[in-house]
């Protein structure tokens, strides 16, 4: 690594020392806050050998938790993409009364603790809740089943895509789209040929963040899950459960799986980037 050297006059010796000190500090912090704990998870998961590790991962409840978490991520991603793009487009390209309010509402989940989201859904869709009796009469199950988990995950991951796409759309302005329009392109053509290519990196980044969050969400899901083993336990819930059951190797094995899913998402992002470039 070659540090960018500013002109000699601007970089006296002390400054360079300070530079190295800061770099060292950043590296040390990253090491101890991020890298070491993650490596430790893997090390603990494998501490009793590969066979025990595999056996823990393949335990039916853990396997189901992996599947459920993936299912939640797969269901929430397209919804997040569509709603995120639509919201960003609406806010960036149009002025209408309530535009600021819409922006605030979209960002609201960022500032609200996930546990509150869970409790809200409980109070709304619960048996004693506002919509509870009507849902029960129609025999529709939302809480303590997949729909409830998907709903709270959507709540928690909602802002990511719009939040990433919106600033870019605003910065780029609408000139290219207007040009396309004057050349006779249809709405769909403009979106596909002009808008989408312009925002693809932001979109991808938002999708990655939203997915990472969907996979890792604990608080909100824990309220609406009902913790039925092998049915409504997502991977984060399963990890806590194994840990509380004094099954440390199982907990770390499950945790390493979650870490692995996160890494796969990151690698995918890098691959797509490399290919599209």
């Amino acid at each position, binding site marked *: 690594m070659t540090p960018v050297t500013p002109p000699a006059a601007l970089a006296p010796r002390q400054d360079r020392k300070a530079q190295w000190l800061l770099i060292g500090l950043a590296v040390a912090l990253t090491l101890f806050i991020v890298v070491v704990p993650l490596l430790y998870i893997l090390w603990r998961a494998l501490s009793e050998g590969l066979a025990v590790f595999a056996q823990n991962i393949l335990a039916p409840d853990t396997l189901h938790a992996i599947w459920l978490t993936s299912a939640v991520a797969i269901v929430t991603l397209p919804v997040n993409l569509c709603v995120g793009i639509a919201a960003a487009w609406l806010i960036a390209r149009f002025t209408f009364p309530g535009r600021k309010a819409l922006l605030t509402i979209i960002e609201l989940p960022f500032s609200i603790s996930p546990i509150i989201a869970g409790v809200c859904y409980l109070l709304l869709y*619960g*048996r004693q809740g506002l919509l*509870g009796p009507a849902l029960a009469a129609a025999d529709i199950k939302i*809480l303590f*089943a997949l729909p409830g988990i998907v709903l709270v995950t959507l709540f928690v991951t909602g802002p990511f895509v719009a939040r990433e796409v919106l600033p870019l759309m605003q910065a780029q302005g609408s000139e290219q789209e207007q040009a396309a329009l004057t050349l006779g392109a249809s709405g769909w053509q403009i979106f596909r040929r002009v808008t989408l290519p312009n925002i693809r990196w932001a979109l991808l980044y938002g999708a990655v963040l939203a997915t990472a969050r969907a996979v890792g969400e604990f608080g909100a899901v824990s309220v609406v899950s009902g913790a*039925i083993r092998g049915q409504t336990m997502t991977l984060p819930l399963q990890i806590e459960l194994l840990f509380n059951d*004094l099954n440390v190797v199982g907990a770390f094995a499950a945790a390493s799986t979650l870490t692995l899913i996160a890494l796969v998402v990151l690698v995918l992002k890098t691959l797509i980037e490399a290919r599209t470039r």
Partner: protein
Amino acid sequence: MKTRLTTALALALGLASPVAAQDAILNVSYDIARELFAELNPVFAQKWQEQTGRSVTIDQSHGGSSKQARAILEGLPADVVTFNQVTDIDVLAEGGLVDENWREAFPNQASPYYSLPAFLVREGNPKNIDDWDDLAQDGVQVIFPNPKTSGNARYTYLAAYAYALDKNNGDQAAAQDFVKKVFANVPVFDQGGRAATATFAERGIGDVLITFEAETGGIARQYADAKLERVTPSLSVLAEFPVAVVTENAEDKGTAEVSKAYLDFLYSPEAQRVLARNFNRVHDEGITAEFAANFPDVKLVTVEDVFGGWDKVQEEHFAEGGILDTVFVNQ
């Protein structure tokens, strides 16, 4: 994979039609009962198959028993509950989900097994802890969870209190003094029973852990290397583990019959034997004798006899500003 995904989705959405000759019930239970019911359920499934020719799957959900009760009130479709607090089933009865005379529906006040707060000490019992008195000594570190959040710890509090009352001929002030001394020896109050266990066994803090006898046996087995030793005090409080059919849900789903059979099964010799093997005390004298080594003699008192019932305990001891608040000085 695709079909599995579709099936699971359909199941999760509640769209799948029930398969013939197949029963499914959900047992919503307290936090630390997983291993116990994982062992009991296959035995019941086999019995049910033999009796009726139908197969049954029993799903389990475990958590703090008050949290579980709350979830059921909001629609968690429990067919049966197996809790460690009478008050949590009372809450369901008030909500109209459980029959209000639920305590008469099964023998022994609907409690198929019971336990008591007991001690677990370090190898060789270096601090010579044999009874509640020893917990109030200077220099003894006592570990149990926070009685504000843990039903387990509330039993510990009541047992210490009952012991002191018994010893001081019912002198309330002396009993409160004693309990205060014990509480002053607790270095950390964890949220729940399992967290306290981790503090004692994993982090190595404290000289004695107080938790249900049913749990001390399991921990001693789990941490065999540490050679932890079980100690049973001379007197303790009987902790009931009540069960009930969640009538409203079971009738809705048509599982009333299998739900009742499942809870009846907990009283059968096979189930009682599994319970006793896991350090839960049972009423069957023959089986108790079989596992006599698990159950040292102890004088058991009930919350009803010493404290006049749970309503009164709640009001006098655990309510805001109650006796617990006056002895719980280092929270």
